[in-house]
């Protein structure tokens, strides 16, 4: 009897070797419960994260900081008025941190400084993510000339040191506010996201599900938006969380140099600059804006850390 399990003449579409059904572990495939919702990367990450205390600590801190920025009245009912006779006064009833050189309530300013920092941080992160994802994904997905030109374009912006460019532009601008600072920071801060996105898109775009979508006749842009980007999002989100923290530090540095937010806006960076003027007489004034700033930045960077660990299956196993 000739063994006709393996046919010599292939059928159309089966030009390569196809194992007979009894050699394939069909049972394993059958055992998969289709009605069960597929477990996604994010679901697994969430399952991992909710057992980690660091996640809850940073989440609580972020909620606290955002509350401070949105409704500062929740934390302080002190008067925003500065009374010069209170200058450099120590803590008193109702003014737990004391007063700065101008006689302003330090607690009031520490709470109200959150709005400027969070606004600049969130806005510049949004700008950076939109711009970086757009440029990076187009470069990575379409490749060819697009990639060459966009990658060189990214290199050019990458070659200009971030702090230097921000200082040069900010010193040129006359009316400065949160949006202007965010735009300036984003203009020179998007390159890393673009590079990360390009790398992630390159890693995803040759997957089977992309080929399948292409075979089903889906448009290229639709594939990019519906299949490629969602699967490349993890590293972008992790980087964006950390970037938010660094943008807040950058804003504080600019305000400290006197070229960030105007002195009429309460900001931790500006308050640090003021505290520096009185550092010989009252060094403790610096503690409050510095601590508020550090806690804010720390909460976002810590969150980015936790999310990254949770998304990385290699780190999770251990």
């Amino acid at each position, binding site marked *: 009897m000739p063994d006709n399990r393996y046919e010599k003449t292939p059928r159309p579409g089966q030009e390569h070797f196809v194992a007979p059904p009894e050699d394939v572990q069909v049972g394993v495939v059958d055992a998969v419960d289709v009605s069960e919702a597929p477990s996604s990367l994010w679901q697994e990450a969430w399952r991992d994260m909710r057992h980690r205390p660091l996640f809850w600590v940073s989440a609580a801190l972020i909620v606290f900081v955002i509350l401070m920025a949105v409704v500062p009245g929740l934390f302080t009912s002190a008067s925003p008025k500065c009374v010069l006779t209170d200058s450099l006064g120590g803590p008193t009833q109702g003014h737990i941190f004391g007063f700065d050189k101008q006689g302003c309530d330090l607690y009031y300013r520490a709470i109200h400084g959150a709005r400027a920092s969070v606004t600049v941080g969130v806005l510049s992160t949004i700008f950076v993510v939109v711009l970086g994802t757009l440029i990076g994904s187009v470069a990575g997905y379409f490749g060819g000339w697009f990639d060459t030109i966009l990658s060189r374009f990214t290199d*050019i912006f990458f070659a200009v*040191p971030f702090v*230097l460019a921000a200082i040069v532009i900010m010193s040129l601008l006359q009316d400065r506010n949160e949006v202007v600072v965010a735009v300036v920071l984003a203009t020179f801060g998007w390159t890393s996201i673009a590079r990360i996105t390009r790398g992630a898109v390159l890693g995803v775009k040759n997957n089977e599900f992309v080929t399948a979508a292409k075979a089903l006749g889906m448009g290229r842009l639709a594939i990019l938006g519906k299949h490629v980007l969602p699967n490349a999002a993890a590293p972008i989100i992790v980087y964006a969380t950390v970037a938010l923290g660094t943008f807040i*530090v950058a804003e504080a*540095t600019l305000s*400290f140099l006197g070229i960030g937010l105007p002195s009429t806006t309460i900001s931790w960076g500006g308050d640090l600059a003021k505290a520096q003027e009185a550092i010989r007489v009252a060094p403790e004034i610096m503690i409050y804006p510095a601590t508020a700033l550090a806690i804010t930045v720390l909460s976002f*960077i810590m969150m980015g850390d936790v999310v990254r660990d949770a998304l990385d299956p290699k780190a999770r196993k251990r």
Partner: protein
Amino acid sequence: MLWYIGRRLLQVIPVFLGATLLLYGLVFLRPGDPVAALGGERGLSPAAELAIREAYHLDQPFFMQYLYFLKGVFTFDMGVTFTGRPVVEVIAQAFPVTFQLALMALVIETVFGIAFGLWAGVRKGKLFDSTVLLWSLLLISVPTFVIGFVLQAVVGVQLGWLPITAGRDPDFISLLMPAIVLATTSFAYILRLTRTSVAENITADFVRTARAKGLPRGKIMTRHVLRNSLIPVVTFIGIDLGNLMAGSIVTEGIFNINGVGGTLFQAITRGENVTVVSLSTVLVVVYIFANLIVDVFYAVLDPRIRYA
């Protein structure tokens, strides 16, 4: 390899041109007329104004002005500052100080960053690891200038161990505190990078093989774990040299150092466009070449990267 270096060098050209054009455009498109400002309240005579405009090519369109600037960069003749000093002279004076400062910071952050990162990575999950990790997060979260003031107040004023400011012609000792301050953020990043990749590599198959064939622990660490873990760290260090030199704007301000950063910031506030653009160009060149060296240095560390 040579072919790769050549191609990589060619790639530098458009990046250099683009970056300098960007900076030049930013600075020179600012509102205000430097020539009119030169005359003060009385104003210049039309003939003198025309002569000055011609001498500095200000009558030419923007792109021609940029080309004249490039010519100046390549012939080391970048014009003069407001006080009449040649810009090249200013750069020659400011650059060595900043370079020394950045190099000291680089050594500090690399040595301590890799040492702590290696130790934490080997003991991942232990108390030492979590402590070091938390401290590194704190260092990233606190702005450099705050760390500078704290060190000034504690180490400089209260303990009196190190001089508070550097001033003119600083020596090694007076640059030590600024270098530590400049190094803090990058130290934290290097530590975290090293820790992550050491922790990853230490469980890799090739390390298990090395252990199985009886290689001493020290040799495994240096030959296998560290060498493989240093690849991302080297990339970071290369990018960071440029950042350190630009980041010195803040640090040099705090410690009163007459380097590139200090000079640059003064020039920016005074509106000395020529000085700003020239110093920035120097920084960009350092930045680009540091990246180039890193790319080439890869080959030494990672033979897997092939240069086709």
